[in-house]
């Protein structure tokens, strides 16, 4: 780290970053990096300060370089995509919440305060916000992370927000930020697999209950259709099977649903076609969209969930 050669690289690098206005490759200064909740949950909270906060919006992500800063190495080679969990314009800060999953996030977890991380972003298209009415958020596990930024901006816009969140057990939900959600003062429906907090079972059961309560037992009357279009929009993030179930439920009630997809990424800018998601367009044709550039948020109704082509 004290090598003068590295310092020189950084200087020219920073210079170049300052030159261009629409610069998308920046450095984020690590200002907070800590465990989120209990260490055994392996969840981390990383706050980066930098120009990126100015242009970022909920649902977008960054591609972070994961390298031990003291030795330059190309193993791991690729950047890691991580969603924006919080965007703070006042502080010029973004918050990333992540789970230590494998080697890359393991190395990322070692970044210390004061270090600078190379980030590409903000990347992708974020969530689109309803103009009025209610926004229902449906999260599975760590799928909760990108929804926090969305909740914040929805609340700031005066929308009513409701959260459905399922996790393994109480310990997970508490570690993954339940308190921060409660502080937002919105209605929260929790479920856990073991019943240690909230209902026992799946988050989709709670969602279904609420949909039935709102629209009545009859499916898809014209009236319900109208009501749902005007009043409720669902945004979901979590395991693929969960998002598929959420989409199917919402479609039964003609509630529009946005899903945040995940896929292995190479370039993260739409150049390599590594991260495609299969959609069906209005003409009924199967098409590929890039999760990194066209997504990660798509309209649930358009996603072909069981496609293997």
């Amino acid at each position, binding site marked *: 780290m004290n090598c003068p050669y590295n310092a020189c690289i950084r200087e020219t690098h920073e210079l170049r970053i300052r030159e261009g206005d629409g610069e998308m490759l920046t450095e984020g200064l690590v200002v907070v990096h800590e465990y989120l909740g209990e260490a055994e949950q392996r969840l981390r909270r990383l706050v980066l300060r930098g120009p990126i906060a100015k242009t970022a919006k909920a649902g977008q992500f960054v591609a972070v370089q994961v390298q031990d800063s003291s030795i330059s190495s190309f193993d791991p*080679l*690729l950047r890691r995509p991580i969603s924006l969990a919080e965007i703070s314009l006042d502080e010029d800060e973004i918050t990333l919440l992540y789970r230590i999953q494998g080697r890359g996030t393991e190395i990322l977890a070692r970044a210390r305060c004061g270090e600078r991380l190379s980030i590409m972003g903000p990347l992708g298209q974020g969530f689109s916000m309803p103009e009025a009415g209610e926004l229902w958020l449906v999260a599975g596990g760590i799928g909760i992370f990108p929804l926090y930024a969305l909740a914040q901006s929805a609340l700031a816009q005066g929308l009513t927000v409701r959260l459905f969140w399922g996790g393994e057990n109480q310990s997970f939900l508490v570690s993954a930020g339940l308190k921060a959600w409660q502080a937002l003062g919105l209605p929260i429906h929790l479920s856990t697999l073991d019943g240690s907090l909230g209902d026992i079972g799946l988050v989709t059961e709670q969602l279904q209950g609420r949909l039935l309560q709102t629209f009545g037992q009859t499916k898809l009357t014209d009236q319900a259709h109208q009501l749902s279009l005007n009043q409720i929009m669902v945004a979901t993030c979590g395991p693929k099977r969960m998002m598929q179930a959420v989409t199917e439920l919402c479609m039964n009630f003609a509630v529009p649903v946005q899903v945040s997809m995940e896929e*292995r990424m*190479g370039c993260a800018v739409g*150049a390599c076609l590594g991260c495609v998601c299969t959609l069906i367009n209005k003409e009924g044709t199967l098409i590929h969209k890039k999760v990194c550039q066209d997504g990660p948020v798509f309209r649930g109704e358009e996603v072909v969930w069981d496609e293997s082509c």
Partner: protein
Amino acid sequence: MSPVDFTTMLAGMTLRNPVLTCSGTYGFGEEYVNYCPLEALGGITLKGITPLPRLGNSVPRLAETPSGLLNAVGLENPGLEEFLRSYLPKVRKMPTEVIANISGFSLEDYVQMANALQSDSGLAALEVNISCPNVKHGGMHFGTDPCSAEEVIAAVKATTDLPIIAKLSPNVTDIVGMARAAQRGGADALSLINTLLGMRIDIDQQRPLLANTFGGLSGPAIRPVAVRMVWQVADAVDLPIIGMGGITTWQDAVEFLLAGATAISIGTGNFVNPQAPLDILEGLKSYCQKHGRSTVRDLVGLAHKA
């Protein structure tokens, strides 16, 4: 410091510098403009196209390996017609040299595309991919059999007035034999190397990690293989070489030039550092200055003379 002349002559093209980007890693030229201005590059190579549109392989298409990347995109592309309609008009206006990359499943496929892509298209050259490992019966057959390679290059050469760059597969025992075949076919330059065939297995699921089972390995992991092949071909064949395979830093680029590449191309390196081309250009300049070379052309093949 004295200026360094970067001008590079290659296959009838005059490039402002020897730094290009690889097919399949740089989309259709628009994706990286917020990271690396096109004006800075010697040229770009577009994603490989085929006569008909292709959806490509299922996901997962990518798997990371030690200092490398396996990909099995399966030549997803909009097809020739859509390329001509929607992409070519934009490409014409790009402030750098643009090389199209074509792939096919038969000789007729290649000829059809070469026919549609002539010098009035605004393209600078045609890179003929006879080496894609990710599609069944893809160009691979042409890329591993010298007779077929010669035949396809000759057919393309006879059809278009654009300079022809033959892109060779490293998945052969005799790379020099393939290079000679491409030369006999009339290639104006050679691109080497394409990806090395590989695979990974998910040990939890106990099945291949890529949906396509096999993929092409790229990135720093393959660089020594690529440098060796550039060296061997430079020794044996009198055609300019575009060296590629794992180039990520300026030191890597210098290695390829010294091995005999006239220009270098960056692929997977862009994913790691989207400003790799800019960093490499800066590094090349300092290297030339340090070694008293007024032109980067002086470096080409220098290690052979030692």
